[in-house]
């Protein structure tokens, strides 16, 4: 057990935790003012709900001893045997509790990312039920496959900090949500304009800040790999913010603040799978392209006509997919990608991308449909028009 790493990873866990309130603001600023609390609440309450579910059962399903590479056993249910020393810890330099809580923060933010897709129209109770089930039945297996000793990791898929586990999985669920829930009332007719962009920029700033814990912390040690992941994370985000505003400047005539913030997040997403595997200059490229790709992805949305309120698919889906493939191209630290003579890695990445999308989409779709059948997912039109703050939470956000 290593005190340096213990301290470092605890701090990183705090940083990752802080991302979810950041996400709450990032999303909250983008909805209409009558839905800001409903939107903020989604992320905020998931810090609570997902953490409890994680400690009771999902951690064990993710990191318990593998059952055929598919799912973890119940050895660690209720955190049994997860203690202050490294006994049983997947990272034997860390107290088991440290490893568990660091991972917990990932299980929190992942379902929170999904909420951008169904913002402004979902019922609160069914949302809670869906989210708890999703952590258990979608997140835990994914996490196990990649990091818990499951088949995807065994196959050699590279996912440093969660391109598949966090971003593609949440984006696939987001897509399922759009299909099941349908469009918001007035979509395409009324203007759905962000009500508070400074809030969104603040959220993006917090996300960027916390992402250092996310990616550098995924080295699970305060070492050179962590330093490298820190640097690639920062440079990819930087390049992506520039990439995004450059493309929109060309396309629409002006660079926007919301674009800079969105681009930064797109870059952070895209570098996540490769942060510890690629060097800084490729990170600039991965980021810069991520900005352009995700901007394009969002434009496509209106083509397909679905209503992904806050562009979860466009940013996390495309960004995560691009990042996973880019890792197969540019990996050079501790693994080799196509450009370093190992085309097989790209194939492995491709397989992991497809498997992740298919599994997460299908499983999320089934979960949404089931919850919808049992409880009804969507608020009434009257509640939706009134806004979720008042209709679902009996609150108003502002009395300025």
């Amino acid at each position, binding site marked *: 057990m290593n005190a340096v790493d213990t301290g470092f990873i605890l701090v990183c866990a705090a940083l990752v935790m802080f991302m979810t309130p950041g996400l709450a603001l990032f999303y909250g600023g983008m909805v209409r003012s009558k839905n800001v609390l409903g939107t903020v609440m989604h992320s905020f309450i998931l810090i609570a709900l997902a953490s409890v579910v994680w400690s009771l059962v999902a951690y064990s399903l993710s990191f318990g001893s593998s059952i055929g590479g598919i799912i973890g056993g119940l050895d660690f249910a209720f955190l049994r045997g997860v203690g202050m020393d490294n006994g049983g810890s997947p990272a034997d330099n860390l107290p088991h509790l440290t490893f568990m809580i660091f991972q917990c923060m990932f299980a929190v933010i992942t379902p929170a990312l999904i909420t951008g897709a169904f913002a402004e129209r979902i019922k609160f109770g069914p949302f809670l039920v869906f989210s708890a089930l999703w952590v258990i039945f979608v997140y835990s297996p994914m996490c196990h496959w990649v990091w818990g000793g499951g088949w995807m990791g065994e196959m050699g898929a590279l996912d440093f900090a969660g391109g598949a586990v966090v971003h593609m999985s949440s984006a696939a669920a987001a897509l399922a949500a759009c299909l099941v829930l349908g469009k918001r009332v*007035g979509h395409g007719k*009324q203007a759905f304009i962000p009500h508070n962009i400074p809030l969104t920029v603040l959220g993006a700033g917090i996300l960027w800040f916390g992402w250092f814990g996310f990616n550098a912390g995924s080295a699970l040690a305060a070492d050179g790999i962590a330093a490298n992941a820190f640097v690639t994370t920062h440079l990819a985000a930087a390049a992506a913010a520039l990439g995004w505003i450059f493309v929109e400047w060309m396309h629409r005539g002006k660079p926007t603040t919301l674009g800079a913030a969105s681009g930064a997040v797109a870059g952070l997403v895209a570098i996540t799978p490769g942060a510890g595997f690629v060097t800084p200059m490729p990170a600039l490229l991965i980021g810069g392209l991520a900005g352009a790709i995700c901007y394009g992805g969002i434009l496509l949305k209106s083509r397909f006509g679905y209503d992904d309120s806050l562009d979860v698919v466009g940013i996390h889906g495309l960004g995560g997919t691009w990042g996973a493939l880019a890792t197969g191209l540019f990996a050079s630290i501790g693994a080799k990608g196509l450009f370093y003579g190992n085309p097989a890695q790209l194939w492995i990445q491709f397989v992991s991308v497809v498997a992740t999308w298919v599994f997460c989409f299908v499983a999320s779709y089934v979960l949404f449909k089931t919850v919808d059948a049992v409880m009804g997912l969507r608020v009434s039109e009257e509640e939706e*028009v*009134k806004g979720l703050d*008042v*209709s679902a939470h*009996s*609150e*108003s956000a502002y009395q300025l």
Partner: protein
Amino acid sequence: MKKIEIITRPYKLDEVKNALTEMGIKGMTASEVKGFGRQRGHKEVYRGAEYQVDFVAKVKIEVVVEDKRLAEVIQVVQKTAQTGQVGDGKIFVLPVEDVIRIRTGETGEAAV
């Protein structure tokens, strides 16, 4: 000339504006107001304490028109803003004695 004050649902603002523009109305002024009427408000709860909010968000649209367009405007607005649900709002007609365009100093109908 007359001033027509329309108090209606906020999301109807754009539709009403478009309908008026289409019939050749060149200007109008809108503001956010809070309405009290037959439409019920809602409850809010903060740390266990309940508050009844009786005022509902409405938009007020003010249009000054020549007398001869009055009936026509009222009709269009009423049709456009109507949903049939309680809370659709009211149209008030007030007399206007004079209008001045600040930019040019024109007065009367020329100034509208």
